[in-house]
């Protein structure tokens, strides 16, 4: 009797004791397969000869060599630098300026904040569609300015191979700068008033207070914002596609569009994989040290 009862309750007890782990396990399984497993899978593919269908003929690093020798990849890397630097720089500058201005006891602050931040709620495809229309020389801003009497006004960047990437910058900054503003504003609101008061009693001017006292205190936010924007820049795909389609020609190619074109349109699975691996490595090079330092600094006060 006793042993039978024990036999019955043992699985139930086991289930109860391990219920939390059981609840968590689907997520762990999904993560291991769909994140880590897929990363390994793609990495393996990048060392093979795969074209249309995955195969496992080992070719070492030669797909990477092909990617780096590819003229479109060269353009993509060049564009990533231009886009990344300008996108991050301009978003930071505009976001910081807007945050400081909004922090001066502004009437209607709530409405202004809402206006600066709403582009962040839009899809990149919508943003791309809107800006494509505004940047269209025959119908958009150029036509508007000419209609206002500036007969020689020229703004045809979107169809100009050398300038098209700057159109992507404009649309990207329009979309993300409000978000940086939100981060900085939250940071400014977190600064203790007394510090500022003390400085102004000491006779420091307002610009000086900002430069010497407030901005240095916002350093963690600078770091976070740069990391997030860099991460967004590397992943950017939808915006370029909707705005320029990677063109004119392949003038606005980015690593993300290179990956998509080679994988899905040109039947170069292995080359696509190699470019994806390089995107992952770039993101990891930025995110891993950042996350590591974040975790360490957030753990320190707790223990």
């Amino acid at each position, binding site marked *: 009797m006793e042993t039978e009862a024990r036999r019955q309750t043992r699985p139930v007890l086991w289930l109860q004791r391990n219920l939390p782990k059981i609840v968590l396990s689907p997520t762990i399984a999904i993560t291991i397969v769909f994140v880590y497993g897929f990363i390994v899978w*793609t990495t393996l593919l990048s060392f093979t000869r795969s074209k249309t269908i995955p195969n496992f003929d080992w070719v070492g690093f030669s797909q990477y060599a092909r990617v780096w020798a590819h003229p479109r990849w060269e353009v993509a890397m060049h564009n990533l630098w231009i886009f990344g630097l300008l996108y991050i720089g301009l978003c930071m500058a505009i976001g910081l300026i807007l945050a400081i201005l909004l922090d001066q006891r502004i009437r209607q602050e709530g409405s202004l904040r809402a*206006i600066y931040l709403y582009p962040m709620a839009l899809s990149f495809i919508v943003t791309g569609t809107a800006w494509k229309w505004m940047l269209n020389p025959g119908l958009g801003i150029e036509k508007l300015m000419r209609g206002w009497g500036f007969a020689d006004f020229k703004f045809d960047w979107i169809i100009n191979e050398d300038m098209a990437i700057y159109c992507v910058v404009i649309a990207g900054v329009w979309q993300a700068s409000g978000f940086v503003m939100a981060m900085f504003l939250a940071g400014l609101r977190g600064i203790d008033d007394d510090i500022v008061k003390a400085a102004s009693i000491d006779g420091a001017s307002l610009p000086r207070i900002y430069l010497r006292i407030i901005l240095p205190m916002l350093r963690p936010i600078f770091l976070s914002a740069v990391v997030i924007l860099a991460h967004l820049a590397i992943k950017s795909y939808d915006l370029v596609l909707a705005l320029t389609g990677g063109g004119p020609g392949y003038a606005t190619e980015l690593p993300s569009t290179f990956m998509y074109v080679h994988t899905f349109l040109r039947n170069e699975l292995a080359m696509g994989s190699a470019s994806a691996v390089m*995107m992952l490595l770039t993101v990891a090079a930025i995110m891993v040290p950042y996350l590591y330092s974040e975790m360490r600094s957030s753990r320190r006060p707790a223990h």
Partner: protein
Amino acid sequence: MAEATWETPKMARGRGNRWSRVVIYGLLAFFALVYLLPLVVMLLTSLKPLPEIYAGNMIALPQEWTIEPWRKAWEEVCVGLACHGIKGYFWNSIKMAFFGVTISTAVGALNGYVLTKWRFRGDSLLFGLILFGCFIPFQIVLIPMATILGKLGLASSTTGLVLVHVTYGIAFTTLFFRNYYAVFPDELVKAAMMDGARFWAIFFRILLPSSGPIIAVSMIWQFTNIWNDFLFGASFSTGESAPMTVALNNVVNTSTAEREYNVHMAAAIIAALPTLMVYVFGGRYFVRGLMAGSVKG
């Protein structure tokens, strides 16, 4: 900084003289105009007949107001070769977002609960493993995912896209709920345990009733991301099964004889409306999600 604290202006900054006030308000107003311009231009263009678009400028008010482009975008415009408007794709996205948001939020809530209130050896490591999924560029999973979806018979289906969005959304929802439940008092959980409450009872009776704000944050974040996704939609769907963003891109970039810009703009606004509504009505939670999802990476 765990929470966006920008709601409380309290500082003694911003006295200055009248001229500096004029400059500040002038700059703020100028930026507001720049940010609003694309939306205004889209709206105006969508309400004009085509000849007026070619004749006038982009910020001129319509001389002849029309909602015909909106009707056409909804019911008639060609997406690829199929010409019955964007309405089918809109519903695809609604379905996809509904299930994707619900499932990923529910799973995230349970994960957050386990990771904070039922801690075990190695749980931080597991959380770190999950969290990494927030940051991968999705290009790295596209090829295996396409293969697996094909094998499961889910290629080009809304179910397949829901699966993908749940898979890659869980990392974020787990992060949200974990951070929220981490500061939920353990004493309440322990007291409930003393009273004999077990795993599910504690979750449903103690934690869930006070999870309203974080559920809002998680759902808004997931809805915005899933609705706005293009990469997965473009990679794993074809034709009629495509989500709204993919359909919009097809409408706009289909080269037909005459480009109906007013219809394109109407379609773009329709595609933007759901997330804009969420932003207008749940803006506070939207911002909190942005902050939690990024700052506290």
